[in-house]
């Protein structure tokens, strides 16, 4: 592409989502004759030093030809098994929301149904013992899943905790390597050349930078019914490499997460009641949370990441929506004559993805044993059906574009204290003592299996992630 040639795609931003989008676009389009450029507008809001990636990112990494070990070494990363929620059912309580599913026993009802009969669901954290991912997470152990060997223990999968700056650099290298043109110069003049938008399609991945306000699109719509509207970022030494930790207090949530050499804490609170221990911190910068959304695709402009959707910054929600956004954009790549209809479908899917992801946070706030304000309107119809069915009989209902898999919803709702009022009759076809024995056996099997896994730190050291110098040539 000639330096002054109008690109087919111009990505705005210097964020993870900007470089990920640019790299995936150029890699997908290959030698099709369509070009991708990036204008690395600086993000105006702070980004956490640790990037929290869900398992779904694996497809995009595969598209980019990433070698996992090389990426982890370069990005000083660790394997992520999920999040540990502390204090949501009251002080001292905890449960793990891990990626994967517990063992299944066809024809005998779901494991949680048997758990209800045996009374284990009421015991704090007890359901975790049926999930290999959760047990490994609590122990901070890791090795790659072996689906055949672990059949009796269900399955787990994993995402990553990466040093955010290094991950962005890694993506940047890939993007430039595959042919993304980096635009230099005054952003405003580049954005509007000769009175027209400077590309066939512009992707706003600035994370909400003000320059993107010049783009022709609709405004931000606040969804102000989540209980916290402020956040602060702090350095925090690593506690677990495998799990994020989401701790609830009456006036705040703390999200701690650690990659191999970087740890951080995000404190979420409400402007009307700043927690005392944060006031004391003095030098901590506080930012407003932009909870809400905008129509992600209008005309020739597509917004990805924080430019389109704002949720509370804990867990992997932000990266989940980014991955979904990039995947959907790739599937619906706009072309002459299909811009409007592709945009319509993109918006349909991404708005569903946003609402289903938001459902996870809203459900947590609605069920927590904390004095938090959650607007009644925040509960979507889908969440109401989901909660009603699970509370009534332990049935899991899922919808299109879900953020959590069915088994993950089960763990989540049980962790938050929802015990079904009834047992599924299918589960009652097995004698209670037989079911109870089965549960003990599964739990013991998983505990024994987990002991055979190395600590994640050892595993990363063995892979050369910890203590290694920069890599980055393995894509």
């Amino acid at each position, binding site marked *: 592409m000639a330096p002054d040639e109008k690109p087919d795609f111009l990505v705005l931003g210097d964020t993870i989502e900007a470089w990920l989008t640019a790299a995936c676009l150029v890699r997908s389009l290959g*030698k099709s004759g369509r070009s991708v450029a990036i204008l690395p507008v600086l993000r105006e809001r702070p980004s956490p030093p640790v990037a929290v990636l869900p398992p779904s990112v694996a497809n995009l990494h595969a598209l980019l030809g990433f070698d996992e070990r090389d990426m982890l070494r370069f990005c000083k990363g660790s394997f992520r098994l999920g999040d540990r929620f502390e204090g949501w059912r009251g002080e001292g309580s905890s449960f793990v929301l891990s990626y994967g599913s517990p063992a299944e026993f066809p024809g005998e009802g779901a494991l949680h149904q048997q758990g209800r009969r045996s009374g284990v669901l009421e015991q704090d954290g007890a359901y975790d013992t049926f999930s290999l991912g959760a047990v490994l997470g609590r122990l901070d152990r890791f090795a790659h899943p072996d689906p055949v060997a672990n059949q009796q223990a269900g399955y787990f999968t994993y995402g990553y905790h990466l040093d955010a700056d290094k991950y962005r650099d890694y993506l940047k290298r890939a993007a430039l390597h595959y042919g993304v043109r980096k635009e230099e110069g005054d952003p405003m003049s580049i954005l509007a050349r000769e009175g027209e938008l400077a590309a066939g399609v512009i992707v706003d991945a600035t994370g909400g930078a003000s320059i993107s306000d010049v783009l022709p699109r609709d405004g931000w719509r606040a969804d102000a019914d989540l209980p916290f509207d402020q956040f602060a970022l702090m350095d925090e030494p690593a506690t677990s490499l495998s799990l994020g930790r989401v701790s609830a207090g009456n006036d705040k949530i703390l999200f701690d997460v650690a990659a191999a050499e970087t740890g951080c804490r995000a404190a979420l609170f409400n402007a009307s009641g700043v927690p005392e221990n944060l006031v004391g911190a003095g030098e901590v910068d506080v930012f407003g949370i932009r909870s809400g959304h905008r129509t992600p695709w209008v005309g020739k402009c597509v917004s990805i990441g924080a430019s389109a959707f704002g949720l509370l910054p804990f867990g992997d929600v932000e990266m989940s929506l980014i991955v979904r956004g990039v995947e959907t954009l790739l599937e619906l*790549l706009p*072309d002459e*004559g299909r811009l409007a209809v592709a945009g319509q*479908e993109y918006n349909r899917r991404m708005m569903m993805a946003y609402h289903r992801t938001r459902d996870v946070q809203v459900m947590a706030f609605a069920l927590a044993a904390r004095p938090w304000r959650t607007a009644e309107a925040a509960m979507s119809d889908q969440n109401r059906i989901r909660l009603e069915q699970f509370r*009534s*009989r332990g049935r899991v209902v899922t919808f*299109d574009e879900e953020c959590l898999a069915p088994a993950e919803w089960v763990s989540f709702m049980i962790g938050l204290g929802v015990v079904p009022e009834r047992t599924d*009759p*299918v589960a009652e076809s097995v004698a209670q003592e037989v079911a109870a024995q089965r549960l003990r056996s599964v739990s013991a099997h998983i505990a024994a299996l987990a002991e055979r896994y190395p600590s994640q730190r050892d595993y990363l050291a063995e892979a050369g992630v910890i203590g290694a110098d920069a890599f980055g040539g393995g894509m």
Partner: protein
Amino acid sequence: MNGSENIKKIVIVGGGTAGWMTAAGLSHVFRANGIEIALVESDQIGTIGVGEATLPHLRFFNEHLGIDESEFMARTSATFKLGIEFRDWGRQGDAYIHPFGEYGREIRGIDFHHFWLKAHKASREGRIDSFSLPVVMGELAKFAMPSADPRSVMASYSYAYQLDAGLYAKFLREFAEARGVQRIEGKIVEVSVRPEGGVVDFVTLENDRKITGDLFIDCSGFRGLIIEQALKAGYEDWSQYLPCDRAVAVPCEMTAENVPYTRATAREAGWQWRIPLQHRVGNGYVFSSRFTDDERASDILMSSLEGAPLAEPKFIGFRAGKRRRQWVGNCVAIGLSSGFLEPLESTSIYLIQAGITALAELLPSRAMHEADIREFNRVMDLEYERVRDFLILHYHATERNDSPFWDYVRTMPIPESLAYKLELFRKTGVVVQYKDGLFLHPSWIAVYLGQRVVPDGYDPRVDALPDEQLYKALAEMKALIGQTVSGLPTHADFLRDYCPRPVADGVL
């Protein structure tokens, strides 16, 4: 559930396919729960014998029950079904098979049909059908079991059955009775509903016998003996989209080698089915009484039979739509009592199965929780609506203008949900995907392309693959399918080896 709250007795009202499938399914799933199941039917009341053609889901229903496939097929005179052939739908003279399987294989994570579209637009490829193993198998009347190895091209398809629904009901009756289901012979003359409404206490037979139960399942067919006549569930009429309201059916002798697919041929005021069983061919003409009459419909059907008729033509009336509520109080409607969608895509038995599955998942306690009822009705509404849209597509996506019927369906307003899907495919080649839809990508692609809804463009990522690589990959896929199919046995030979119909059953 919790001890005393458990359902003690289920009463199924009506036999036939819906009644006996429900009895078999529930008696198997809840065999250890001590639930008494009774089925009331009368030899005086005939059954419709819905859908002799099925979808692959029925295999999983049978497998779940532990039914031996070859025995089941032999006893129901069944043949294998790899898809449905549609003739004269897009234009007169057109034909395509909607297969139970994939087209080609995705390349670099991109759906295969986009690659085919590029080659097709460059006049380098003809029909997409050549990239579907089940289509090629069907056209050559071959059959073999799919492979469990996902790397094999033989894993790219599934199959269903073409069966005698009456024999299937009989087969399931044996199955259910062996598992304790009690059959009660008798004609129901009264349904006793509590004065406050919504709850059925008992049904009364002609001989004054009263049958009580905790849960009543209405499988009484179109009339909806309990769900409509007693509980007034209401009916949502979809005849503005699906104007066919009558069918005339007749079996005939088989004159040709058995093919593993059902045929649906468009006619001047509807369409005609052809379902080959082992011993006969089922035929019927589904038509709209607004655009033709019984006599003309019967003439068209009888004049197009391939063999001698084996019975007098039988007429059936219906109205496309569904009950507004399929579960009211302690009564659940399953089968024709819950709604009717014409058997163009063999969905009748599937919808029975969907109702049984939803009920098994939501089996209530005696208290009849509103949560269970709401959820069942939500799930079944979704099932019906998504099947409805797919059926409407067949009529609406046509260029035919040779009769008032086709003029009407071609120009009629369609549901927004379908209009959206059509527009997206036309402009982008992207198929709208839903988590809970019955028909998946390949089904929509089959009907779209088979009925000349060809996208304006294709996925731009396709152009990243050099042309010579694309054409080479397509040629290899096609060759692999051709070579694979050439080595397979004929459908007729496979049937003879696997599930020959017992000679003792002799006549029809």
